[in-house]
């Protein structure tokens, strides 16, 4: 027989778990490079594409290094029967992971809070008054987790919302910065996130120059926060331009 489903055999992964913490680098140590060879203030190349899922109202695929995400937007469609009348639209967000998203299966960190964090990042930018009584569903699936998952999900979701024709004040872009020792690293990968001293995730509207969400964990000094914020703002406006180009390309392709 090929297999015995239901046989509760316990299995383990023979993969090597790296436990070593990379040494802390001083400010002078500038020639050290990151696991993927980037500079400290360099983001991973972004691959963005709209219209990834045909059955959704709008969708987008984003690939930043090894982080691969699909977001589908459904609606605006009828709210659940149990919902009371509302003269503004509702936003419903969900983020899930594939079982093979991270190499160490079942031991990954908890991502339950990502759904509500995605909701908070998006709620301020969507014109909910344009779809009263209805719900817009934003569902994200992380195909592969390679670090900075939430920022990628948020940026990808904003593309998917545009693709679905949901009215928004501006695009939403998100970037995170890790603080390891004295150095700040933008757009960290999983290895860097695992040993970071602090993390700084910012969601902003690049054209309006406004921050919609900001989350800081770990220990930060004020100069570090200033620097991280400036890094994120620059990266967000650059990412905003990339996203705009992607949308323009999609629009001109559909015109032809």
């Amino acid at each position, binding site marked *: 027989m090929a297999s015995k489903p239901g046989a509760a055999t316990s299995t383990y992964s023979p993969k090597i*778990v790296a436990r070593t*913490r990379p040494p802390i680098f001083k400010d002078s140590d500038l020639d050290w490079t990151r696991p993927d060879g980037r500079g400290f203030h360099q983001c991973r190349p972004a691959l963005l594409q709209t219209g990834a899922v045909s059955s959704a109202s709008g969708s987008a695929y984003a690939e930043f290094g090894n982080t691969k995400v699909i977001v589908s937007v459904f609606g605006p469609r009828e709210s659940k029967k149990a919902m009371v009348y509302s003269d503004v639209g509702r936003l419903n967000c969900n983020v899930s992971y594939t079982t093979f998203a991270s190499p160490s299966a079942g*031991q990954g960190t908890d991502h339950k*809070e990502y759904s*509500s964090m995605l909701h*908070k990042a998006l*709620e*301020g*930018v969507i014109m909910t008054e344009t779809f009263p009584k209805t719900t817009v569903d934003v569902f994200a699936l992380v195909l592969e987790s390679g670090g900075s998952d939430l920022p990628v999900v948020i940026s990808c979701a904003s593309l998917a919302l545009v693709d679905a024709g949901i009215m928004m004040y501006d695009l939403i872009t998100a970037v995170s910065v890790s*603080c*390891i020792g004295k150095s700040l690293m933008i757009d960290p990968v999983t290895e860097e*996130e*695992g*040993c*970071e*001293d*602090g*993390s700084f995730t910012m969601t*902003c*509207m690049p054209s*309006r*120059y*406004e*921050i*919609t*969400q*900001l*989350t*800081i*964990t*770990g*220990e*930060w*000094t*004020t100069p570090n*926060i*200033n620097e991280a*914020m400036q890094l994120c*703002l620059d990266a967000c406006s650059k990412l905003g331009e990339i996203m705009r180009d992607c949308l323009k390309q999609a629009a001109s392709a559909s015109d032809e």
Partner: protein
Amino acid sequence: MVGLSIGEQHFVKGGIAQDLRTDGRKRLTYRPIYVETGVIPQANGSARVRIGGTDVIASVKAEIGRPSSLQPDKGKVAVFIDCSPTAEPTFGGRGGEELSSELALALQRCLLGGKSGAGAGINLSSLLIKEGKVCWDLYIDGLVISSDGNLLDALGAAIKAALTNTAIPKVQVSAEVADDEQPEIDISDEEYQQFDTSSVPVIVTLTKVGAHYIVDATTEEESQMSSAVSISVNRVGHICGLTKRGGCGLDPSVILDMISVAKHVSESLMNKLDSEISAAEACEDES
């Protein structure tokens, strides 16, 4: 929910704009804070904090557990918050659950620091008894009894007080055991260890109403807010966590300004809280 008439809304907003709030406070003044410790005898540590009409209880329970395989040299801390429907009718059902998990997440962020443990209010390594085998699991439970705004700051203060009040029994571990067996543990009934809470941060929530921001907002004032930023600051003035609520966007410079104001406010709040906590502890010892 508070239903304010348009007149009342203007009154609240106008007062904030003129630096004289409805209860006579200035924008950056806290309501009086009362701290009581040891309110739950069966817990390892507990405290009740009242800030104006907001009333919360925090308790700390320590249990023997096993470190996770990913972090064999650290203990574990879990934060749970319960918003009682008696405090506010909207806390019943899903509304309360959402608020509870949001508060718990924000507190966890403020208390536990980064992945490497930097900036943590509770030193997880100090909870370890034997590497990879035995550690303390701390369960921090917060209960909102009555709500009049500024829940996060009150819970943060209550947890700080409860941790100060916490006594963890000393533990003896039998010396040598085989690699894959659990060692025997002997928990002392008499000797207790105090918890070092000097690095536990305080949380300052700045609520933006109109063009200004205020500390320690009441429910009425919170209903008029556009966004709120909760910043936790430790004794050395480092930021240990930041969470933003409310959908409205904020200009980056406003956020930086808020952070420096929060740092300033946190100093006096920290001192006030420390003296309240030590007074409460002394009071408990006497009784």
